[in-house]
């Protein structure tokens, strides 16, 4: 009597047929997975996220310099240098400076002069970016490297 413990043997042709179908399905599925790999680039075409913002001597304390190519605002104070990203953390618009902070034109987020989010849909504050110094003395800002708000780089 065939049962769960002693099942009927699968006929040879059925076995080959079933496994053939599974092999085909796997091959097609694998090809689709392989094809999906293509649209994800291995390297992105953008320039380096690091750039030279100028030498410390160019900035007297209190100077503000906006670098539009990177949407970065460089601030020189007595305490040192600070770089803040002007890209709204909500959906990537570029914020504008107003009298008492920054406004995002796209969805109305408001930030203080330190970049702290005050109102609107922005999920977090504006990013402060890390500053380092190159061998030639110029300040290097890395837009991919976030730092704690209130961090000033001293030369």
């Amino acid at each position, binding site marked *: 009597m065939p049962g769960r413990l002693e099942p009927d043997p699968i006929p040879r042709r059925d076995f080959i047929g079933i496994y053939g179908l599974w092999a085909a399905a796997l091959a097609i599925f694998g090809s689709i997975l392989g094809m999906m790999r293509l649209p*994800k680039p291995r390297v992105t075409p*953008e320039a380096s996220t690091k750039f030279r913002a100028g030498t410390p001597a160019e900035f007297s304390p209190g100077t503000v310099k906006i670098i539009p190519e990177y949407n970065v605002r460089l601030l020189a104070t007595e305490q040192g240098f600070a770089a803040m990203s002007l890209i709204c953390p909500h959906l990537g618009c570029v914020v504008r400076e107003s009298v008492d902070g920054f*406004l995002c034109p796209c*969805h109305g987020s408001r930030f203080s002069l330190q970049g702290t989010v005050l109102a609107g849909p922005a999920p*977090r504050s504006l990013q402060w970016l890390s500053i380092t110094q190159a061998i030639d003395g110029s300040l290097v800002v890395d837009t991919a490297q976030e730092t704690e708000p209130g961090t000033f780089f001293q030369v």
Partner: protein
Amino acid sequence: MASDKTAAAVQNLKKLSANLRELVIGKGQADQDEIVSIWENLKATPRTLRALVARNGSAAMEGLSRFRENLVKLPGAFRDSAVRHDAPTSDRTRSQAIFSNFFLHIHSTKIHPNSLRISTTWGLGISLLSQFAILTVTGILLMVYYTPSLDLAYNSIKDLHYVVPTGRLIRNIHRWTAHLMVLFVIFHMARVFYTSAYKSPREFNWLVGMLLFVLTLALSFSGYLLPWDQLAYWAITIGANIAASPNELVHALGLPKIFNLGDLNKELLLGASSVGQDALIRFYMLHVVALPLILTLGICVHIWRIRKDGGLARPGGTPTAAGQGVGTVEEIALAPQEQPSKTYGLMCVVRDKSPHTDKDPDETVSSWPYLLRAELLIFMINMLVCIALALFFDAPLSEHANPAVPENPAKAPWYFLGLQEMVSYSAFIGGIVIPTLTVIGLALIPFLDREDGESGVWFGGAPARKIALQSVIVGALAAVLAVAVPVNFGWLRNWFPGIPQLIIIICNPGSLLTLAYVIWSLNVMQQTRSTRLSAIALFTCFLVGFVILTYVGTFLRGPNWDFFWSKSSWPIH
């Protein structure tokens, strides 16, 4: 020389004639007869020759004459090879015309007059098909000049606008027809919903329709980047960041960056971390090849399923008084022993005083010409509207894309402004969670509402109309409240500056509005014990909410997404 020969020939002829006369005069009757017969034969020579050629002449002559015959018969033979029926003058040949034609066979050969009634469908589906055809043709024409590169894209649109013959008109038609198509997809969905046309056996086609709805929006959105103007650049930047907005949640939960699945979405969409050449070529590929291909396939399935699901959902019954009762069979009670052991089905029993010759139970009419004429009319109206819009209004083109300065306000196309209003509360909830839930909710309607009810009838009764009206009021009030409260009183961050981000993300006007709609619809279900009425409540609320948020986004939002009652009160800067 020539005159010598002529003279000689004349001499010979004269001799011949003299000889002949001598011959005829000098001989008897028999000879004369022979001469006459020779003459007769001579006269008949061409004909004889022809007959000879025809009978066993050269193969070349035969082939040529047959070719000449074929040439004469060409138009007729060509028609016969393409069309396999006579001129469509009778119902039979008209049916054949529909049935045997590749382009027409998607129609049934006969159609119910109630399906043809304008109020059954308002011609929305055929309008959409017409608009898709117009978009395809104008799109191909635009591709002749458009170049998808950062340096050339904007200029090629300018060329189309100012230099290319009819370029401006074609681009305008393309733009306005795309807007109309989005509008009509929404109308079409509302029509199908309010006439219960999604009910069994049409559930699957409702799903296909949802796919077409999403694809239509995706096509519009992907087309937006191509002109590479400010509107394009910032709309796609915002769109790509919405795709990346699950990151918000990761950040709010304090998880490490490895969980930033949103970055993967964005990278797949843009091919880079910001909108640039790679994004342009990807969106171009999606807009002109991938999405239209899938949409075409989807449209084919959608129309195929209409036929396989038994045609359009329509009000039942016969359209004329004469047809009342046609096709009904009255059961006759018989004593058990008299009941037949075999039963016979009758296709149609006539129970009336007047004869119903040439009438089937549904009084259907021939699709040719009634349906085809209606379709042509809808197509022509669409052409007229699109061309008229294109003649009177130019498609917008703002200045060249500038990644350093967004437009203020940076507004998406109108059909995304409701979404932008939601996104201005929370990118993740408003841009991903609520739209996804809405699409899933819409897709599930036919599977959750399985009540029997007449398909094809608007609303289907007074209770449904009452619920729909109530839902319009509830939906409108809730939507106005959702906008008015944050505008007048601010939101959680203004009230409790230190509040955790997670609460701000989850508890925002958009999510509360959605929740209110769901609660209202559940309340309707509780009160009426009807899933259909509950579905009407939810659908109506979402429709009204969509309209109000779109209105607010379009007309009441100004620079920095601030609220203004009119554009004239925008600050001058």
